[in-house]
């Protein structure tokens, strides 16, 4: 049974948990973590229940809630989900829960950490559910602010610099998005009263656009502003400079949230607003997007290959795979876009698993230096096996979660832009190289002497990793489970952009 106002419950439960945590004494760490975990667990249950009630063949938004919020500013509280946002909502609830489980070892400033992580979850879920562009921007800002504090406060001296970079780049992007959304609002008329509107569904209808907004140059500028704002979060090359530093400096739960969730906001913004509202501008920018995707796929793969710090390697690997998704998106073909859609979700699951496993390693030895880890498989076989599985999935091995999305993406890209497809394939080859290197260095071989006292796999680690491993296997063997949810919406999107 799904309760009324399901989406609102899912979005705001974590925020409620954050407020409860703020009222607890900082010494009550166990209570803080328990509250955080419970308030992150409930949305997972609700989101999964929602999947069973969702009609995948329906093109309209479902579970819609629509209320007036601030009429003078033209805001509405308008939320709903479709085949694009529902899988991301499920992913966000699941990954947030697992990230909190991974962060169980955070002791210093636990109160602030868990409260901010829950606020971040509310922001991410809000973005995925919002159908009013002003509301979407409010949640977007919430995500950026919470991430800034998580990076700056728990990331050591390096984190401070990473936070500053993140703040400047992402806030610049957020302001570009805001200006673009305001321009759209001003030049899209509500057919009922003729007034400007933030209503996304009305903005999607080209008949509501006024003469000013029909100008080609204007549409290109607005599209560029939206892609810039979203591209900072994906991140698109060369806007990725904040990412390696963040991965190097923060507790593993933070890169986990950033790679698995925050990066998705960028893609979602492009797919939800920029593409369907300005399809002609999207067609104009298609070659640029595919080129940037190709550069990211190769640059990320090379970056991962040349690093020693495991968190940084995973960060570059994530960057490379998202580049591949960008190639699929830019192909404008049904298979390319379907592949990108699958990659968005499976990338979140696989990299959540990788970062969770890396968090387990860090908890044991306090470092993620590749040269100081060897023979994990012999000392902690369960953790080693799960880590290997995740690495193989990141490689794109058939039968595991990444493969269907990657294959569809390459097939779609090949039709439109063979060079971009080649770049994507090179990215996958590089992924095979760096994942093999990590498996050989960390998991296999004879254990080094300082790993003699390595603790065995803990229950909460298994609690985080086993569900993810099952999902990685399930979506690898039976991708239709996810594709059926997204296909109607993504096919509609491809039709809009004339693919």
């Amino acid at each position, binding site marked *: 049974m799904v309760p009324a106002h399901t989406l609102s419950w899912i979005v705001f439960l974590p925020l409620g948990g954050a407020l409860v945590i703020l009222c607890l004494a900082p010494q009550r760490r166990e209570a803080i973590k328990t509250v955080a975990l419970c308030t992150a667990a409930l949305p997972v249950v609700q989101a999964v229940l929602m999947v069973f009630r969702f009609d995948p063949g329906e093109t309209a938004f479902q579970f819609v809630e629509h209320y007036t919020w601030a009429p003078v500013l033209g805001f509405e509280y308008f939320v709903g989900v479709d085949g694009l946002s529902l899988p991301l909502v499920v992913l966000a609830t699941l990954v947030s829960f697992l990230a909190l489980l991974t962060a169980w070892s955070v002791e210093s400033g636990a109160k602030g950490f868990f409260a901010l992580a829950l606020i971040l979850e509310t922001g991410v879920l809000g973005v995925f559910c919002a159908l009013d562009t002003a509301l979407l921007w409010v949640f977007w800002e919430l995500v950026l602010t919470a991430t800034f*504090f998580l990076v700056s406060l728990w990331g050591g001296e390096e984190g401070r610099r990473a936070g500053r970079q993140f703040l400047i780049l992402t806030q610049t992007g957020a302001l*570009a998005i805001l200006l673009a959304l305001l321009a759209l609002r001003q030049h899209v008329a509500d057919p009922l009263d003729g007034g400007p509107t933030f209503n996304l569904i009305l903005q999607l209808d080209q008949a509501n656009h006024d003469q000013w907004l029909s100008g080609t140059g204007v549409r290109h500028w607005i599209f560029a502003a939206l892609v810039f704002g979203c591209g900072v979060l994906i991140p698109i090359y060369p806007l990725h400079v904040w990412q390696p530093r963040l991965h190097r400096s923060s507790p593993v739960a933070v890169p986990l949230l950033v790679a698995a969730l925050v990066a998705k906001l960028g893609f979602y913004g492009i797919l939800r607003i920029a593409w369907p509202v300005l399809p002609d501008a999207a067609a104009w920018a298609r070659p640029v997007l595919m080129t940037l995707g190709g550069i990211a796929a190769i640059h990320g793969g090379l970056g991962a290959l040349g690093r020693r710090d495991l968190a940084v390697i995973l960060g570059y690997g994530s960057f490379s795979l998202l580049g591949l998704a960008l190639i699929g998106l830019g192909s404008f073909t049904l298979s390319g876009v379907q592949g990108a859609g699958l990659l968005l979700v499976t990338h979140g699951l696989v990299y959540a698993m990788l970062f969770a496993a890396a968090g387990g390693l860090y908890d044991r030895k306090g470092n993620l230096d590749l040269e100081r880890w060897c023979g994990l498989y012999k000392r902690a076989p369960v953790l080693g096996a799960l880590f290997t599985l995740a690495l193989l999935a990141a490689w794109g091995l058939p039968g595991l979660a990444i493969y269907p999305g990657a294959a569809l993406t390459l097939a779609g890209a090949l039709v439109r832009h063979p060079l971009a497809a080649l770049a994507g394939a090179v990215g996958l080859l590089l992924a095979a190289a760096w994942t093999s290197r990590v498996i050989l260095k960390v998991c296999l071989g004879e254990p080094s002497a300082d790993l003699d006292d390595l603790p065995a796999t803990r229950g909460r680690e298994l609690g985080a990793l086993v569900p993810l491993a099952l999902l990685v296997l399930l979506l690898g063997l039976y991708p239709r489970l996810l594709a059926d949810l997204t296909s109607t919406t993504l096919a509609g999107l491809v039709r809009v952009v004339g693919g």
Partner: protein
Amino acid sequence: MGPGQTLDVPVVTFAAWRPELVLAATLVLGLLAGARARRHVQFAVVAGLVVAAVLAAIDQDGGGPAGRPSHPLGAHFVVDGPAALARLALTALAALVAGVLPRGQHRSATMLVAATLGLVWLTEATTAAAVLLAVGTAVVGGSMSAWFAASGGQRRAVRRWHLTAALGFAVLAYGLALWSGLAGTLEFGEAAANLAARPSLPPLALPLVLSCLGVGLVLSLLGEPGRFQDGDLEVVPAALTGWLTVAPLVGLVVLVHRLVPATDSAAPAVSDFMGALAAVLVIGGFLAAAVQSRLQRRLAWAAAGQVGLALLGHAAASSGGGLAISMRCVLTFAPAQLGAVLLSGAIAGPGHVGLRRGALPVLLAGFLVSLAAVPPLAGWRPRFELLQALVAGDRYLLGGVAAAGTLFGCVVYLRPLVGLWRGHAEPPPLDEAAPAAPAGAGSLAVTSLVAAALFAIVLAWGAGLLRPGWYLD
């Protein structure tokens, strides 16, 4: 308008000047009784300010559209909607600040009343002479309040401000004289007609006069914004610094509103001038704030950037809509700024080591996040409205300035929080005996209460439960 005459919202003429009457009576009482019975005098001054604030709140309907109640000081002053709103904000802020001043500061509290009265008059002024009287009263009141609050060795900073204020007052006086010459009248209302009747104005005349007025007002009322923190030492109590960085802005925004219609005949030039001035203030204020290492100085300089953003509201829209945005910018800024300055004093002040834990830093974080215009606290709504108005008016260049200001604001306000919270000091075990109350625990408690009240306002405005100045829409 005669007594008892009704507007759209019923209003009695007498009501228009009750708050000023109470303020004047409080001032006289404070001056007469200032030499003795200190504690009771200070209490009476605070009580007077509270009563004035309550009366100002009751009289919020003074700006009904059908007419304006007359003022006891004649046609030089008028209480319309913006003035009534500003009066409420000014008296409420002064009551809060006087309430948290340490004991024995009765002279400072009394002069704060004078400053408040001056600023209230500034919001009501309709002639050049009234502006001079109002600014003079506000400057003397504010600077003397700071003088009495500062200890002997630290009065150098206040003396420097006296000089700056005197210079600013002189520039303002000359500016007003030039203005009167240009418009042929002291009255702002008549000036519009006179200027429109003139065949042409010398090209640089209006910008020159407006520059004089702007420089004069800024120097006399604001001076050097970060003046009252000297290294780690606070020259005057943090509350007073907060008031001095907030209250003049409220007065200035309303005065600008009254001046702008008077220059309607040269509206494009004035609008451009306002836009340029606002851009300079936004960029300059926030950049100057970004290089300050002390939180209070940073907040004080950033206030100049906030003024710039408020002025952008004037440049953004028609004078009515522009005023509403500007007023909301200032009214949402005021409680957050005052709260942040108050708490920065309480947290960093001597004897309060270790207060990084507990509710106060959370409140400080809330105020700074609101100042940075991050949703869902109060500051983001007027900023959103401002950007919306600029885009709607196709003022994309100014929109870029506002966006840049917002970005700088984020950096200026959010970075100190990282410094405050980093390190995550280990909390003491729960069963450990509570430490003895630090020195000044009483005033700290009052500060906390005031901060909590201010935060409640910030939260309610942010969530849309309250809408400041709704009748200005």
